[in-house]
């Protein structure tokens, strides 16, 4: 059980808040004080784009403790529209629909429960872009 550790990350995890380096212009997730690419401290927090493409993916058949009831599930490296890359689960998708290059969008979903009586951990997953009129 670790309530504070989950709680302090919630804004970043719920809204996909990242960092953008004003020196080298790269974006990354999560935000941090120092740019991992050029070591600059000129980093600002930004709301990351909600759409991206799958760079690579895998299907987890042997899950870790806490994820048993959800397996098998897909995790992927998603490259967002601004170049930032995120590691996330895919959802609302069949194993045989997943492809490198697929267009996906961010959705707010449940990731796990700390225990059957513990708190629920939410975060951002990605699903195939919902087709709509607009």
């Amino acid at each position, binding site marked *: 059980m670790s309530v504070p550790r989950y709680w302090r*990350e919630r804004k970043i995890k719920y809204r996909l808040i990242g960092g953008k380096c004003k020196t080298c212009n790269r974006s990354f997730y999560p935000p941090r004080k120092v740019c991992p690419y050029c070591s600059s401290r000129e980093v600002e927090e930004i709301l990351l784009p909600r759409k991206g493409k799958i760079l*690579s993916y895998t299907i*987890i058949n042997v*899950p*870790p*403790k806490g994820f048993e009831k959800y397996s098998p599930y897909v*995790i992927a490296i998603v490259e967002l529209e601004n170049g930032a890359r995120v590691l996330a689960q895919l959802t609302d998708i069949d194993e045989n629909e997943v492809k490198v290059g697929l267009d996906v969008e961010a959705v707010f979903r449940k990731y796990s429960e700390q225990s059957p009586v513990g708190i629920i951990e939410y975060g951002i997953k990605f699903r195939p872009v919902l087709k709509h009129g607009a």
Partner: protein
Amino acid sequence: MEKPVIIGVGYTRIGEHWEKSLRDLAVEAALMALDNAGVNRVDAIYVSNMMSGALQDQEHLGSLIATYLGLKGTPACKVEAACASGGMAIHQAFLAVSSGYYDTVLIVGVEKMTDKLTSEVTFALAMAEDREYVVSTGATFVGLNALLYRLYLTKFNVGQKSIAKFPVIAHENALNAPHAQLKRKISVEDVLSSPIIADPIRLLECAPIGDGAAALVISSPEVAKESPKDTYIEIAGSAAATDIMSLHERLDLLTLFASVKAAQKAYKMAKVKPSDVDVLEVHDAFSILAPIALEDLGFAKKGEGWKMIENMDVSLSGKLPTNTMGGLKARGHPVGATGIYQAVDAILQLKGEAGKNQVDNPTLALLQSTGGVGGTVVVNILKRG
């Protein structure tokens, strides 16, 4: 700089040691190394281990092992760099002895993975990755390597069967390694039809879960001369580097930059180049890491490492015998001890004690110890003196 010398080697068989605890294994390997070195005290002890906290609820291994070796008073601490802990302990010993502060150092790597269930061990292994932002998504360590595997196969248009050959060679080598965990022959068909753990990684492409401990006694050349031996094993080069911890954040996803950097520095220190290496130990926790290692360590061009496996260059009779006792896949991978087992296997070769697996007159060995998905890499180069 006078390079430190390895004067003693000790190790346990790797397997499921239900009756032996973490401290039992560490003591067994350490006493064997001390006896082999002909010393009964050391100036410092480094214990390399990754998961004693998660799996045994035990930290403070330095003091624990010093106590159980009857060496109270000796400065000791745990060295941890995920799966590169062993390689990092060799590096720490190198720094300690070459600085002149300590003359003789004992390093013992130990991991006891069978104390908990597979799902718990899987979760603990993921500590090598970013817990808050990667592991919280349900990603496993195998899964992250699977992402890398898919990228490699796609980018370089390679068939998985070429890479699946590496575990086959590993198992072949382990048949004649008494301390290896897995001693059975497998074929590429066996590998590719074994259960999928995280697509495309198959069960027989993953290093097994096992228990084991390996130890080295490392000293300055002056001390080494006091207990004469036929062959001296010098640590000719030792270097470490990190990369951006999480694979997905790196600019070049197919190069383990930490390998490249550590290797370049180690080669320079040892004043050697890739073509001088006679035997190689790569960190094949998953088969995909082997071709990438061959590329990043300078033995093949990027995207062509798989060819050295396909055409058996890495076999015992090939031009670069690799993982001659089975590597992580078949010799075994008790995580915190692995980097030291690599040294053990290389030393067996360098000293001519490799039995049926003996390669002809090797003098230079390179060991690559990798933590996480290349978040840390330590490269140690051993030379027969």
